């Protein structure tokens, strides 16, 4: 589009030096305008494959889901005729916020995030500081060991832990029972959420530790030397110098971990069949929405997905703004 309009524009500007009051400025303007159009064509061609697929696979589905969520599905009492769609823009959304199972799943995920994220990041920070300290030996081994769980796909990690938790053959409980005479009820109603939290912590602690550790490595040697000359202990240096200096990395890992909690799905989904009922099919919001898809309740599932995507989007955006302001 811009290609076809470019030549006349440049031509008319190019002609202006003859009549214009300031020929020099106009001559300088001509190539600038030509460059502006040429300058849009090339980057857009570079961006086109990504942008087109992005629009088709990210933006369009969301718009489609929003559209679908504005209709309600009515099945006739006997189910003999095909269900009919009626335009009723607010019905599904009203249902989402009155859906006790969906609200309960949201609450569960909030509780999960409030406990699991601080525990995991605290652990990651302590490990990163230990690894960064002068006294640590075998650093590359420990770095590798903590990164190893991240190499296991989330679903496979959950499968593995489902066997370690197994009510009949848990090796952890066998060991605890033989040595200390007690067992952990991994799948009891109150404990199942924390069994899930352990899997998530196991998978992501090393990853977060490496991000914090890389940030620690960028602290200039002079800064640490200065702290040492001032007689600061290792503890004091860690608390007053290192932790404040890796604040951006801590914020980043916090934001990503909170967003991760909101999309909790793989681990509870894999544990569900062996949990003996403590992990329900609506344990997390995503599982609840998927259950509605399974029941072919598409408009309602669409409404749930839109609400979820919106919540996560607002959450991410909020954190993004908050952290950006904090740094300025």
């Amino acid at each position, binding site marked *: 589009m811009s290609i076809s309009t470019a030549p006349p524009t440049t031509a008319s500007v190019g002609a202006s030096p003859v009549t214009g009051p300031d020929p020099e400025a106009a001559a300088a303007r001509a190539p600038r305008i030509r460059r502006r159009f040429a300058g849009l064509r090339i980057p*857009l061609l570079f961006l086109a494959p*990504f942008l087109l697929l992005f629009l088709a696979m990210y933006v369009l589905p969301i718009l489609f889901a929003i559209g679908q969520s504005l209709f309600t599905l009515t099945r006739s009492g006997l189910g003999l005729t095909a269900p009919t769609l009626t335009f009723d823009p607010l019905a599904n959304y009203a249902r989402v916020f009155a859906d006790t199972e969906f609200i309960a799943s949201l609450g569960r995920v909030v509780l999960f995030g409030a406990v699991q994220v601080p525990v995991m990041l605290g652990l990651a920070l302590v490990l990163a500081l230990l*690894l960064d300290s002068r006294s640590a030996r075998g650093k590359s081994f*420990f770095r590798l060991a903590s990164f190893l769980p991240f*190499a296991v*796909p989330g679903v496979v990690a959950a499968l*593995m832990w489902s066997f370690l938790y197994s009510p009949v053959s848990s090796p952890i409980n066998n060991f605890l029972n033989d040595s200390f005479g007690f067992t952990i009820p991994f799948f009891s109603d109150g404990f199942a959420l924390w069994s899930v939290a352990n899997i998530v912590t196991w998978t992501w*602690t090393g990853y977060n530790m490496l*991000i914090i550790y890389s940030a620690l490595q960028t602290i200039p040697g002079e800064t640490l030397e200065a702290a040492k000359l001032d007689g600061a202990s290792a503890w004091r240096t860690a608390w007053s110098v290192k932790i404040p200096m890796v604040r951006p990395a801590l914020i980043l890992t916090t934001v990503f971990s909170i967003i991760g909690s909101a999309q909790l799905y793989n681990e509870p989904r894999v544990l569900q069949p062996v949990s003996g009922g403590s992990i329900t099919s609506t344990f997390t919001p995503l599982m609840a929405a998927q259950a509605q898809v399974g029941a072919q309740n598409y408009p309602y599932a669409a409404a749930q997905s839109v609400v979820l995507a919106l919540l996560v989007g607002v959450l991410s955006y909020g954190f993004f703004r908050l952290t950006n302001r904090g740094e300025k």
Partner: protein
Amino acid sequence: MSAVASAPRLAGRRAAKESSLTRSFGVTGLLLLSAFYFVVPIWWLIVASIKPAGTQFAGSGLWADGFGLFDNIARVFAVNDGIFGRWMLNSVFYAGTAAVVGTVFSAMAGYALAKYAFRGRGFIFGVVLAAVLIPKVMFTLPLFLMFNQIGLLNNPLAVLLPSIVSPFGVYLARVFAAQSVPDELIEAGRLDGAGEFRIFGSVSMRIMSPALVTIFLFQFVDVWNNYLLPVMVLNDSKLQPVVVGLVAWSGSNGQVPGGTVIVGAFLSIIPLAIAFLSLQRFWRAGLTAGAVK
């Protein structure tokens, strides 16, 4: 001031040397404890895969009494006429294709965002960043609903097309292109009369190649590990990737024995483990770039 301070410090240094030894033990001990937590479950998985069939859940699980690895592998491949091999190939196909195409698309987009000044650049990059922050999973159910409407369910494209798009890859490519491709080199290419795409293909891509490996790896693992998308859009078990197949086995109520599921899980992580261990430095490059804002 330094004279006052240095006297106690000299006296303290001997004590410090002794305490540094105990501290070293303490620090290393704590690190060992964490390594134990991280490594033991994987160790258990390896040991269970080596144990003779039927004894997977016997003993402490920390040591194998007997060797049944090859027999176990044969059992995994015997289920449903070797469907497991098919799943592994599917995973390689989905993850490989999506990561190759996606890396090229991400590199082009990131390069354009880093190296050309044009109107709307800030807006597009803002959208990419927003998409990095909203997890892919959030788009999966809407994708299913859309594919259901246009009849793309049970088609490998339903997994491939969404998997090619990687906002994080674009973000990484932009960071790497801005860091590593000098403007002078692009300018020199222009003076030599090379077109913009020629410069990108033969100069910039080559300089960015270590970064492209990183982008490829992140995307490959991302697609390999994705469970929700394939389980939603693919019904036919012959089309499914290995993670979907394994979960189906584990939820089969014992139709496929637990021991076989464990060995399958072990086999499924070998390709990724190799990619991780052999390409560690590329991982770290991606992690640090992700952390720098």
